[in-house]
C-alpha cells in the first residue's frame, strides 16, 4: 500500500501516467525526460513500483484494441489521481514554508 509522502520514482511514475496511459518503456523514457535526465528508472524499479501501485488501486491496466500480452499499458485511476493531487498539495505547502523561511533568514 502506497503511503504519503511518495518516493521519487513512484511520484514520477504517477506524473507520467497523469498525462496519458503508457507502456512500461514509455514510462521510463517519459520519466527521464520530465526529470531532465536526473531520474532514470531501471526495469526492476519500475515494475516493483507498478506492482505496488496496482495493489493500491492507484493505477490499472489499460485495455487497448491492439493488445499484446507482453506490452500492456497502465493508466491512473481516480483514486491515484486524488492521491497525486494530495501529494502535490503537500509539496506546495512545504515549498511555500521553505521559501518563507529562507527569505526570512536572508533578509
Amino acid at each position: 500500500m502506497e503511503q504519503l509522502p511518495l518516493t521519487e520514482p513512484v511520484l514520477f511514475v504517477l506524473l507520467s501516467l497523469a498525462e496519458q496511459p503508457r507502456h512500461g518503456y514509455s514510462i521510463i523514457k517519459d520519466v527521464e525526460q520530465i526529470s531532465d535526465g536526473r531520474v532514470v528508472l531501471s526495469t526492476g524499479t519500475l515494475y516493483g513500483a507498478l506492482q505496488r501501485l496496482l495493489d493500491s488501486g492507484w493505477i490499472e491496466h489499460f485495455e487497448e484494441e491492439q493488445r499484446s500480452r507482453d506490452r500492456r499499458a497502465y493508466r491512473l485511476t481516480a483514486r491515484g489521481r486524488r492521491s497525486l493531487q494530495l501529494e502535490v498539495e503537500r509539496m506546495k505547502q512545504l515549498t511555500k514554508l521553505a521559501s518563507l523561511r529562507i527569505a526570512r533568514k536572508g533578509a
Partner: protein
Amino acid sequence: MRVLFRWLLNLYPLSFFRKFSEEMTLCFNLGLQDVRHENWKRRGAFFVREFWGAFTGAISEQLGCRFEDFCRRFTMSSFRFSRISMAFMILALIGVLMAIETALRQIGSDLVQQPLSFALRLAGIFLFLMAIFGAIGYGVLRVINRSAGDRLVNIDTWPQQRRSPRK
C-alpha cells in the same frame, strides 16, 4: 546480457514473474536497442542500472516489503539514533564480541582468557535480556498504541513554550 537479465527475473516470486516477466524482458530489450549505438560509458551505466535494479527488486519482492518502506518505518523514531542504526550497532557489537572470542581461543592463555570470557558471557546475557525486555516493551507499547517517544514528546515540561502556532 539478455540471458543474464532473464536469469535475474527468475529470482522474483513466481506470481510476480508470471505477471511481469514478459513485459520486463521487452522493456529491457527496448532499452538495449536504445543504448546499442551509444558509447561504452552509457552502455555500462545501462547494464549496471538494469542488473542492479532487477537484483534489488527481486530481493525486495521476495522479502515482501520495500527497502524504502523498511528504512522509512525504522528511521521514523524519536530516539537519538534511528532504530535501524541501533540494529546495525547491535549487530556490529555481536560481530566484535565474536571476533574477540575467536581471537582468545587462538591465544589460548588462561590468564587473559578467563576474565575476558566471563565479561563476554556477561555481555551476551545482557544483550539477550535487553532483546527480551525490548521485545516485551515494544509489544506492550504496540498494544496500547503509544510509543515511548510519543510519551516523552507529550510531557508538558515548559507549558509556556508550548503555545499553539495558530494562536
